[in-house]
């Protein structure tokens, strides 16, 4: 015989539908959104990763001054270094040894070399002017590739590849920004083309025109595809760009760096021997246009993870309260069943069923919505930022684990704990409704207030445990409110403060301290000061919320070598004894203290550096380590006089652009906030409004519990002749007072918690900024909660009004 108690579950769901509907909506929305974010995230990454294979992404590329001969390509394909010395001798250079020494020194040609054989592809392009509205003015630079390219190919989000010579396919992101649609006619290089496709090139997920651009520009730069004949007919010069792929692919970042170094030696020597000039060389792993978006997406799950953890806490909490309340209400039935021979396990299983059923239902519906409706929210967030290939829906194991397995496991254990604890009592105590461990033997003495006031106070005291639960719930809500209000505030605040955080208005990072002729790069700018810099990685595994599929495991740290008596960074001689100073942002983010040792790793080499922290420099703009130039040179094996760039208060105009790798201004500092705003801004704003509804839902559930627990007393008060209004004031006013008090206290608790949660959140992101909330936001976060409660109290009043008098009469024992 099937346990007849099972039949209660669907009926309970039906009879208490409003309660379970609220819980279910709560779960479905949260699980749906988070599942959607993960599915969107994983699907997008899958699309990018699979595109790398199917669209044949290069391992690197180089541009030559002229088209390479078949011999040169053959030589490069072997990956062997050419004999440059012999070449100089053959050329009759009298100073062959000297020439060789110079070249060998510059490219470390004397060091051991392993030949990395490669397959080389032509990937020629032209940079043309694009006039997208046919007004005769150039709107953007467009990089044109031929449609017959066999490397770095494109996927089509809409439309198709050009088939006739007057057709063109342009980048989807650029098209969206400048409002180009399929069928439009645009002018490229003075010639009209009909747009037949919106594409995404696998090597241009972000539209970086040059690899040294700090930010991509999807308005002023475009990539496009035309037929080979149309490509031939364009007039601007051809860039002889060649892409290569290793015959045996390197396995990790360190190997990629080694391979790239080895191939560069072959490239340098072979081009010298074949009298061709290298215009550029870029291994793919350093290519911003193909990696920037990926690393951003990979690290993008931190926000979703935080939401997920808060959600699980809230749902588990609601269920614990609901179940505990149900057991209290059904105490006599439980006692009877236990006395009749139902075992504790049977009762535990019975009461566990409902939360698990609701969680499973919520998770199923949430996941279905996640894979359909909400997936598009995340997808669109990415599409608004990057030139990504068509989305591929994938089965996201992470989404399933985070939104279904973890909530289920948590539900299971939290409920098991609460129910087992509740059902520990003997059947007799259940029969007697004696569920409280200790009971006050004497009534509290109250001041001589009016009867109603004292009554309210009694209600307050009597419901203390319920109000405790309410307080817990309000803290959760406030935590979410602080998140919803605080994140945009923090982003704005940081962006506003950023200029003040710069220790130099301009930081010029040079390609090398010497120009092509070997001369040291100098400037006449008075305020310029030399500095050295290296980028290392700080491992942050202790903060990982989400393993796999994302890099996000290492923080990028800029190590500066600062000149003595620097006008920009004051080290106060602290680093003289071999120590280093860290930026205050670095110290705060990872809780670093003076005297502590930190280990930094080279990203592309198997090298580690251990430094002792001698001081903290007040710099909130980045994760940085500062040391004196001498210490820097010693640590990184640099020669005296070597440097990486200039700090300057004014713009430097006398250094040639080709020698500058990057100029760091405040835009670079606020990159982290821009990135966050890009990826989370929209969802946080939606989240804020969803929170008001959730707040009301949560208070509704909690206030319902208080009224339900007092149903009998309310019914009795009605029998005694109290009016609904009076009873309402007896039961609603104490709750209102508690909600107001607890909201204010909850705000402080939520705010404090959020500062801590934010710190964890920041660990997952690159860079650092502190949690900030403006005063209006603080007030609003409490006000929203109170507005939610005002709505609930109206419902409470209606509920009180509907409690019949026979509740008290039927239960006299």
């Amino acid at each position, binding site marked *: *015989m099937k346990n007849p108690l099972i*039949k209660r579950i669907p009926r309970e769901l039906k009879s208490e539908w409003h309660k379970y509907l609220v819980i279910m909506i709560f779960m479905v929305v949260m699980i749906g959104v988070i599942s959607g974010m993960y599915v969107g995230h994983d699907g997008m990454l899958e699309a990018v990763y699979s595109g790398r294979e199917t669209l044949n992404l290069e391992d690197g590329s180089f541009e030559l001054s002229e088209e390479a001969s078949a011999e040169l390509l053959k030589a490069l394909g072997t990956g062997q270094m050419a004999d440059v010395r012999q070449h100089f001798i053959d050329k009759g250079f009298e100073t062959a040894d000297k020439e060789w020494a110079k070249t060998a020194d510059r490219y470390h040609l004397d060091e051991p070399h392993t030949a990395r054989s490669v397959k080389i592809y032509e990937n020629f392009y032209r940079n043309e002017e694009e006039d997208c509205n046919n007004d005769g003015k150039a709107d953007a630079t467009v990089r044109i590739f031929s449609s017959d390219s066999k490397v770095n190919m494109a996927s089509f989000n809409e439309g198709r590849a050009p088939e006739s010579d007057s057709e063109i396919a342009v980048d989807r992101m650029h098209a969206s920004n400048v409002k180009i649609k399929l069928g439009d006619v645009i002018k490229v290089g003075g010639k009209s083309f009909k747009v037949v496709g919106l594409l995404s090139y696998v090597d241009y997920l972000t539209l970086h025109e040059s690899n040294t651009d700090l930010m991509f520009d999807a308005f002023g730069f475009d990539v496009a595809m035309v037929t080979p004949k149309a490509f031939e007919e364009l007039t601007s010069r051809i860039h002889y760009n060649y892409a290569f792929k290793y015959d045996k692919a390197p396995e990790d970042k360190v190997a990629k760096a080694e391979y790239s170094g080895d191939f560069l030696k072959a490239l340098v020597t072979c081009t010298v021997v074949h009298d061709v000039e290298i215009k550029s060389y870029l291994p793919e792993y350093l290519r911003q246009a193909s990696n920037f978006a990926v690393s951003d997406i990979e690290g993008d799950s931190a926000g979703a993870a935080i939401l997920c953890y808060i959600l699980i806490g809230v749902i588990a909490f609601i269920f614990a309260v609901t179940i505990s309340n149900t057991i209290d209400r059904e105490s006599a039935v439980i006692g009877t069943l*236990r*006395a009749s*021979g*139902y*075992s*504790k396990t049977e009762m535990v299983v019975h009461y566990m069923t409902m939360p698990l059923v609701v969680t499973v239902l919520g998770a199923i519906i949430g996941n279905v919505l996640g894979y359909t409706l909400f997936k598009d929210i995340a997808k669109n967030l990415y599409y608004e930022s990057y030139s990504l290939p068509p989305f591929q829906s994938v089965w996201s194991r992470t989404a399933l684990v985070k939104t279904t397995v973890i909530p289920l496991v948590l539900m299971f254990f939290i409920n098991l704990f609460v129910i087992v604890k509740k059902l520990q009592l003997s059947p007799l105590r259940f029969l007697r409704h004696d569920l409280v461990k200790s009971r006050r033997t004497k009534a509290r003495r109250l001041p001589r207030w009016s009867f109603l006031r004292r009554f309210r106070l009694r209600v307050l005291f009597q419901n203390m445990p319920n109000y405790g639960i309410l307080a817990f719930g309000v803290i959760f809500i406030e935590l979410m409110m602080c998140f919803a209000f605080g994140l945009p505030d923090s982003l704005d605040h940081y962006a506003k403060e950023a200029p003040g955080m710069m220790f130099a208005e301009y930081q010029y990072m040079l390609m090398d301290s010497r120009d092509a002729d070997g001369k040291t790069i100098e400037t006449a700018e008075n305020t310029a000061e030399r500095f050295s810099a290296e980028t290392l990685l700080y491992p942050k595994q202790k903060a990982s919320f989400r393993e796999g599929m994302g890099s996000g495991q290492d923080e990028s740290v800029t190590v500066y070598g600062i000149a003595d008596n620097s006008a920009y960074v004051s080290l106060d001689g602290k680093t003289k004894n071999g120590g280093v100073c860290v930026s205050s942002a670095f110290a705060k983010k990872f809780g670093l203290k003076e005297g502590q040792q930190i280990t930094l790793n080279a990203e592309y080499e198997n090298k580690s550096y251990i430094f002792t922290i001698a001081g903290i420099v007040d710099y909130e703009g980045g994760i940085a380590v500062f040391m004196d130039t001498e210490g820097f040179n010693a640590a990184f094996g640099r020669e005296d006089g070597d440097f990486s760039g200039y700090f300057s208060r004014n713009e430097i105009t006398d250094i040639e652009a080709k020698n500058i790798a990057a100029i760091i201004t405040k835009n670079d500092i606020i990159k982290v906030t821009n990135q966050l705003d890009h990826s989370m801004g929209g969802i946080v704003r939606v989240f804020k409004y969803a929170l008001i509804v959730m707040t009301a839902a949560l208070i509704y559930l909690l206030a319902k519990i208080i009224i339900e627990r007092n149903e009998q007393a309310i019914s009795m008060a009605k029998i005694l002749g109290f009016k609904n209004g009076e009873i309402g004031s007896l039961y609603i006013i104490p709750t209102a007072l508690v909600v107001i008090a607890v909201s204010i206290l909850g705000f402080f608790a939520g705010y404090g918690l959020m500062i801590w949660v934010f710190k964890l959140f920041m660990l997952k992101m690159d860079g650092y900024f502190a949690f900030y909330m403006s005063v209006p936001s603080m007030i609003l976060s409490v006000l929203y909660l109170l507005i939610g409660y005002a709505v609930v109290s109206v419902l409470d009043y209606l509920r009180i009004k509907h409690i019949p008098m026979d509740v008290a009469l039927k239960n006299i*024992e």
Partner: protein
Amino acid sequence: MKEDFLEIRDLKKSFGTGEARQEVLRGMDFTVKKGEFCVLLGPSGSGKSTLLNIIGGIDTPDSGFVSINGDKLEEMNEKQLTLYRRKHLGYVFQMYNLIPNLNVKENIEVGAYLSDRPLDVEEVLTTLGLQEHKYKYPNQLSGGQQQRVSIGRAVVKNPDILMCDEPTGALDYKTSKEILALIEDCNKKYGNTVIMVTHNEAIKNMADHVIKLRDGIVRHNDINTEKITAAELEW
């Protein structure tokens, strides 16, 4: 001559400590035979409900023992006690404690589920006069009807002992007599031993065995030779 089925020896139980200590059972001894209709009679505070709870294995004595069919309850652990209640006992309380979202038939099935040899649910419904109400929910029934369901839930298990704690305490005269008649019928029809706690003196007349309690001890332990039917009871 029927054999002793339930044996109670020197049963003591007290509540509280120090000055507040109250001895509820102060050494009780009696036996009940299989199939007997036994009434435990006494005023409030005489210890009858405590005694019933101890016999039912949901409370424990301070000393002495309860033995059912030779098995001593004090030697059973919690699991064995649950099994004992499951296999041998049926409980009827003054409050019906029905499951509100199960209908009459399902409430009775809750009892049937526990038994290895349950009675036919339909037959029990007929016996209790609940056939026409079997799809109703408890809140659609009168107090007397609800108590019938509660008896059905206990009887359907076909228990060795039917424990009734003031089963008519919340009912009017007429309904009380109907309920008593039902318990009497069940006792006759299914042969369960009935132990009924009541403070209603009149009920003793329908019992085989009357045990009067006062201040925690057995004052009278009588076999009723002039038993009348429930229908004949007057109070």
